[in-house]
């Protein structure tokens, strides 16, 4: 505004000084107000009233406890009194493994849908009202006293000796009948082994001792509760010699299972034909080749006569050559070969024949003499479902013969087989008490729900294979008004006068009065179960509970987590009873006519559906189908294509006695005449998280010959209207390694010729820039694809450790999974003349009918030249001095550019607010997903599972694998405290959660800067491959070649 035109413009209208000051004070006040409003609200710091003595070093530190969950010994990490991680024990106790369900037990513990206390249901669950435990107990006890003989206690499998004795005490005092119902059991084995050898124990195959393992529908990798996966992995890495020489595994099965996917060679045999194929192998070995003790045995020859390879191969649709070759291979490996049967295949009506044939093969191959079976530690599997007992009970109930039914840990309304009709039978029982932890399908029809505590909240014990015993010690106070099952049983048994239980009650009631709050004394335990358990363990530990020596021994058991008897006597020698061969006859007769047969298999993570409300388990992808949040009818690709189906199309499965409309899935490697459905889904009353997820296939099972038949069921499948999208955790199933060499894999032959075989990939150009130096440490990981079996335990371990939310079915369908580590499952496209076209990615029949399965755990590769870091404008992700790719949540604004630019697609974005409930009811109505996400993740007390060492991410923030940086930092702080070099941590100082959870030790983590660390040695091995060299990202993770043992 120039001075020339003064009459057009006003006089200089500068704001005068006083006005300026006035204004600035206003602004300053506004700013002060604003800053006051922005100030972090005051936070309380609540000190102990009186600090427990043993916490002196434990503030802000994790504390670990050994305990037991569902019979599996686990290590529980707690912080400030709440369990935050379930990990396998560092020293594997032989005979038990930790399953995903055990790892995810935290979600069951903190499940907001558990009953908060006893409820009077009166069969109207919507009008349930609270009750007091005392009135429940008084009621039950008085009824027990009156009608004990017509009362029934229905439990799930009982693995606790103390609980067994308490129940036994109740039974003796009142005449109460105890019925066990275990929905899943290996009944065929339990029937075949005693017949063959006269004693009941099913010995544990030593998979780490055999050179050749032949699986007849074996499921030792699918079901990791036995811990066989650990043993198996020991012999799976190539390059070993002698007793460490790589084993070979041949699997015969109908549905491609996790076990079959890990086989070196796989032959498709439908479940109903498996027994006959096994018998044919036996025929070839015994009758044709004259091998083993039964060679020349007329009885054997007679029993095996129908099973010539020729006869069987046409009936079963298996090439005779393949069987003959397998027989030759077995014969050659005689004394070093194991045959393992089992799994869903042996739940077919020819299951006993299958198990018998397997025993026969092992006998013939001299596996027992060669010590390939561990007689001291039998396989820890339920022997019987007791389905007949359940059916009888239901009949009795219907006829009015049961006055009171107590249900504890069983849910027959949900999982009883067809024909039992338990719900209807319950209506005829005058009084029903459920001790389950929630108003489940059975509990809704009860009169009273008296919720049992979670195993982490209650005392108990468990029997381990081989006579060992573990204590289930509570790791926290009960969250709700619940009581441990043992506690309840002891209480009731004491009330009806059992002396041992009365003693426990007496011990509690005659305790010295609780010390006043202002003294440092501790109150002794008021837990009945504790007193009872100690008394019960007195015999085991050899001292009376009053003896200080007992306390020492007891504390040692609690510390170690288990107790092992002094060396037990030698197992009786095994003598094969040829009479058992009669069972083989069933192998022939069981075959249904040429048509489809159905296999029902336990869901990979949910198992029998007990933890149906557990979001982690629903979201853990099935290792083979990669389906989350539900399940589908698996169908052979060729049949699937012929029927013109698409994944998720609804089909009707008609088994005659029951029908089910389910989505269908194109299951690679499936036998053409077989379909399969997972069990353990379709809960209706477990809570909103798991309700109505997937189909409930339990009613499709049938009782026959005292067993439950869940495979080889003749069914027809026809198309139904509609499509229900399947929540896959994976895009394309196929890998064409010619075009995309991203999974190092080779055969043993090629490996022995060239140790670097299989790691070939496109080469990258030189870098324009010099490298950064990492003078102190450089974190790196090596993953052995030969020992990784794809089970997915690392996924749950990571999820628990790193506070990873659950996104739900819609989240998975939207492609917004949050897991930081995933197991990519590929079907390796075989080499093809001229290479594959783009059609290979859709899974052509040539690839998926006889698939070679590859598993590749995929997590942040912590690339040295990380493309994600370059593109973040906010500097929210960059490299640390020790080679970590850091992701800083509080700096992240969420451009998602890093995720786009990640060639491995391992970055995860918080599309929704998962950590807290958003309040606005309008937006909860407008966008219902807000409420759903909070339901899945943010209902108290779910937050208690959070690891305080890891920031809980808000929405709009990117996250990814951090190599468990919190553990690195804790280890460094520990080193600083101890005065050692925090830049040079030893190998085991930092164990990421995935490595900790891995049962097969496929993951190695450490400092690549130290030349002698395990990880740098693995990374420099010729088997190591760092992915996408052509892109030049230089990952910190080395994948060791998956070697397939082709040396038949």
């Amino acid at each position, binding site marked *: *505004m*120039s001075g*020339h*035109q*003064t*009459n*057009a413009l006003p006089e200089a209208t500068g704001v005068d000084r006083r006005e300026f000051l006035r204004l600035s004070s206003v602004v300053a006040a506004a700013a002060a107000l604003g800053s006051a409003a922005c100030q972090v609200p005051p936070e309380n710091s609540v000190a102990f009233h009186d600090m427990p003595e043993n916490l002196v070093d434990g503030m802000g530190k994790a504390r670990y406890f050994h305990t037991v969950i569902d019979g599996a010994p686990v290590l529980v990490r707690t912080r400030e009194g709440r369990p935050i991680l379930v990990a396998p024990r560092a020293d594997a106790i032989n005979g038990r493994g930790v399953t995903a369900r055990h790892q995810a037990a935290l979600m069951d513990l903190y499940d907001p849908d558990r009953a908060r206390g006893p409820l009077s249901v009166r069969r109207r669950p919507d009008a349930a009202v609270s009750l007091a435990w005392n009135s429940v107990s008084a009621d039950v006890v008085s009824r027990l006293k009156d009608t004990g003989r017509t009362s029934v206690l229905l439990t799930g499998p009982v693995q606790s000796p103390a609980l067994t004795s308490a129940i036994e005490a109740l039974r003796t005092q009142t005449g109460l009948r105890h019925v066990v119902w275990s929905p899943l059991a290996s009944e065929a084995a339990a029937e075949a082994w005693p017949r063959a050898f006269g004693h009941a124990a099913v010995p544990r195959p030593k998979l780490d001792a055999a050179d050749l393992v032949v699986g007849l529908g074996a499921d030792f990798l699918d079901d990791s509760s036995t811990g066989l996966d650990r043993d198996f992995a020991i012999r799976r890495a190539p390059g070993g010699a002698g007793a460490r020489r790589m084993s070979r595994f041949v699997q015969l099965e109908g549905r491609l299972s996790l076990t079959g996917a890990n086989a070196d060679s796989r032959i498709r045999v439908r479940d109903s034909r498996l027994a006959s194929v096994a018998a044919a192998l036996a025929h070839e070995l015994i009758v044709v080749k004259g091998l083993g003790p039964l060679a020349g045995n007329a009885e054997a020859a007679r029993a095996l006569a129908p099973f010539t390879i020729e006869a069987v191969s046409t009936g079963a649709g298996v090439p005779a050559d393949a069987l003959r070759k397998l027989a030759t291979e077995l014969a050659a490996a005689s004394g070093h070969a194991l045959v393992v049967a089992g799994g869903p295949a042996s739940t077919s009506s020819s299951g006993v024949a299958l198990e018998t044939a397997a025993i026969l093969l092992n006998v013939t191959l001299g596996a027992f003499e060669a010590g390939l079976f561990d007689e001291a530690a039998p396989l820890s599997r339920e022997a019987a479902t007791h389905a007949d007992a359940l059916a009888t009970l239901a009949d009795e109930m219907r006829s009015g013969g049961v006055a009171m039914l107590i249900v504890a840990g069983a849910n027959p309304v949900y999982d009883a087989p067809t024909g039992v009709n338990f719900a209807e039978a319950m209506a005829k029982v005058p009084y029903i008490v459920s001790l389950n932890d929630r108003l489940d399908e059975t509990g809704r029809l009860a009169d009273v729900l008296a919720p049992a505590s979670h195993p982490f909240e209650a005392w108990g014990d468990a029997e381990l294979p081989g006579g060992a015993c573990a204590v289930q010690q509570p790791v926290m106070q009960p969250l709700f008004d619940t009581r441990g099952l043992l506690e309840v049983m002891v209480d009731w048994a004491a009330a009806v006068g059992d002396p041992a239980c009365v003693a426990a009650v007496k011990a509690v009631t005659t305790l010295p009065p609780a010390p006043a709050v202002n003294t440092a004394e501790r109150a002794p335990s008021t837990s009945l179960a504790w007193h009872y358990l100690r008394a019960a363990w007195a015999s085991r530990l050899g001292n009376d509970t009053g003896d200080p020596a007992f306390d020492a021994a007891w504390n040692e058991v609690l510390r170690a987590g288990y107790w092992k008897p002094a060396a037990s006597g030698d197992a009786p020698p095994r003598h094969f009873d040829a009479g058992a061969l009669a069972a083989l006859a069933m192998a022939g007769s069981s075959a249904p006519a040429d048509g489809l047969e159905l296999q029902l298999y336990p869901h990979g993570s949910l198992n029998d559906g007990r933890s149906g409300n557990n979001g982690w388990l629903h979201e853990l992808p099935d290792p083979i189908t990669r389906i989350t949040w539900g399940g589908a009818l698996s169908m052979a690709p060729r049949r699937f294509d012929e029927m013109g189906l698409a994944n998720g199309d609804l089909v009707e499965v008609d088994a005659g006695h029951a029908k089910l409309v389910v989505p269908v899935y194109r299951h690679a490697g499936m036998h053409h005449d077989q379909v399969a459905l997972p069990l353990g889904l379709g809960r209706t009353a477990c809570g909103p998280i798991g309700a109505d997820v997937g189909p409930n296939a339990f009613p499709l099972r049938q009782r026959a010959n005292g067993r439950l038949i869940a495979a080889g069921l003749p069914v027809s499948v026809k198309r139904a209207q509609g499509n229900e999208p399947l929540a896959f955790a994976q895009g394309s199933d196929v890998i064409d390694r010619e075009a995309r060499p991203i999974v190092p894999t080779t055969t043993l032959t090629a490996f022995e010729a060239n140790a670097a075989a299989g790691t070939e990939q496109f080469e990258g150009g030189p870098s324009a*820039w*010099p*490298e*950064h130096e990492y003078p102190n440490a450089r974190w790196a990981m090596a993953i052995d694809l030969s020992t990784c079996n794809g089970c997915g335990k690392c996924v749950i371990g990571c999820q628990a450790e790193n506070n990873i939310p659950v996104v739900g079915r819609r989240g998975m369908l939207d492609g917004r999974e949050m897991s930081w580590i995933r197991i990519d499952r590929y079907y390796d496209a075989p080499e093809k003349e001229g290479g594959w076209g783009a059609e290979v990615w859709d899974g052509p029949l040539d690839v998926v009918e006889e698939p070679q399965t590859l598993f590749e755990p995929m997590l942040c590769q912590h*690339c*040295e*030249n*990380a*493309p*994600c*870091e*370059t593109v*973040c404008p906010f*500097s929210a992700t*960059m*490299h*640390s001095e020790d080679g970590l790719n850091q992701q800083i949540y509080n700096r992240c604004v969420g451009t998602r550019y890093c995720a786009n630019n990640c060639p491995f697609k391992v970055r995860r974005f918080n599309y929704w607010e998962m950590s807290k409930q958003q309040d606005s009811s309008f937006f909860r109505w407008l966008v219902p997903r807000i409420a759903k996400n909070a339901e899945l993740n943010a209902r108290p007390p779910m937050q208690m599972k959070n690891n305080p060492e890891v920031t809980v991410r808000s929405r709009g923030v990117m996250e990814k694998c951090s190599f468990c940086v919190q553990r690195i930092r804790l280890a460094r702080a520990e080193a600083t405290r101890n005065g050692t070099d925090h830049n040079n941590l030893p190998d085991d100082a930092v164990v990421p959660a995935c490595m900790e959870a891995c049962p097969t030790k496929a993951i190695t983590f450490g400092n690549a800067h130290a030349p002698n660390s395990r990880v740098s040695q693995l990374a420099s091995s010729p088997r190591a491959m760092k992915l996408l060299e052509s892109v030049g990202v*230089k990952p910190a993770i080395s994948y060791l070649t998956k070697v397939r043992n082709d040396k038949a």
Partner: protein
Amino acid sequence: MKPTSITGVLGDFHGPDEALAAAARVRSEGWTHFDMLTPFAVHGMEDAMGQRRSWIPWVTGGLALFGILFAQAFQNYVMVYDWPMNFGGKPHASWPAFVPITFELMVLCAAIGSAITAIVAGKKDTVPQPPPLLVKTGATVDRFVLWISSTDPKWQADAAQRFVQSLGADDVRLVEVEGANHA
């Protein structure tokens, strides 16, 4: 009533050619504080009025240089000196990445600076003008208006008015403004 003063004389032309010719005449007669108000930029008028080329491009050049130097200095300060961080394995001074912002800041400084300078210069580098709100010249419509300011050393109101009329201008009028004295 406030005193008024004569600030100059206006005369209208109706085409660019007449205006150019008139401007050349005015200049050749030795007037210096005169101006031509036109509805659009008339090419050749600079020369007709005896003005030198605008110096705006020099300002532009200087500002562009400033933009370049500032951008380079700032980016290097941030990425290399102040807190060097390892982004994706690149060196701290990964200069190609600094090029786009350097270019943009160059353009930003040069362009905005030039425009502001031009507007300010249009006000400062001039003779006193008839205030547009008070004197409707018609120069924004279709008139090419000659303006001779009373600050011209040769100024004599009558003579100036006669001179403008002699150029063939229409509507020659003296401008009187209240209380203004724009020296």
